[in-house]
C-alpha cells in the first residue's frame, strides 16, 4: 500500500513540475516549488515506511523546515531583489 501512495505522490509531483515549467509568472513557479516541497516531506515519510526504516522521519522534519524558509526567502528575493532589504529598512525606520 505504501508503494501505491508513493506512485500517487510522484505523479502529483510531476503535475506540479509541469506547472513550475509552464508557469507564466514567477509566483506560479514558487507556488509549484512549495507544493513539491510539501509532497517531498510526505514522500520521505512514506518511503521510510516502505523500506521499514521510520528513522527517515527526522529527515522529513528537517525538510519541512528548509522548505518553509526557502519559500519565504525566494519570495523576499523576488519582491525586493535583495535578501537583506527588509531589515535595513527597519533599522533606518527605527
Amino acid at each position, binding site marked *: 500500500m505504501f508503494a501505491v501512495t508513493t506512485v500517487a505522490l510522484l505523479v502529483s509531483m510531476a503535475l506540479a513540475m509541469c506547472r513550475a515549467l509552464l508557469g507564466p*509568472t514567477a*509566483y506560479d513557479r514558487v507556488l509549484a516549488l512549495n507544493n513539491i516541497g510539501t509532497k517531498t516531506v510526505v514522500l520521505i515519510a512514506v518511503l521510510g515506511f516502505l523500506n521499514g526504516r521510520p528513522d527517515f522521519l527526522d529527515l522529513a522534519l528537517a525538510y519541512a523546515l528548509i522548505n518553509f524558509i526557502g519559500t*519565504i526567502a525566494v519570495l523576499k528575493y523576488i519582491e525586493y531583489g535583495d535578501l537583506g532589504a527588509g531589515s535595513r529598512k527597519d533599522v533606518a525606520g527605527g
Partner: protein
Amino acid sequence: MMDQLLSVLTWALLLAGSFFFLTGALGMVRLPDVFTRMHAAGMGDTMGAGLILLGLCVQGGVSVVTVRLVLVLAFVWFTSPIATHALAKAALSGGTRPYTLTGTDAARGDESHEGGGATSAP
C-alpha cells in the same frame, strides 16, 4: 482481526490522501491563475498531507514514530498558511491581477485602493 482492521483503515486514509494530492496537482495545472492555483495547492497541504500522515500514524501505533509524524503534520499545518499568505501578498504587490470571470480588473482596483468596499460584513 485487529491487524486487518488497522490495515484497512491505513489503506483508506492513504488512498484518500493520495486522492486529495492528485486532485490538487490536477487543479494546479487546470486552474487559470496563480491565486486560484493557491487554493488547489492548499488542498494537498492540508488534507493530502494530513490524511497520509494520519494513515502512517495508524501503522506506527503508539511509539516514537507517531510522535514524529504528529510533529511533521503540526509543522506543515502551521507553516502552509503562512507561506500561502506571503505568496498571495507578494503576488498582489508584484502587480499580478487576479483572474475574474468578466475579465476586467476594475472591481479589484476600486476595492483595494479605496481601502474597504465592505462587500460582506460578518
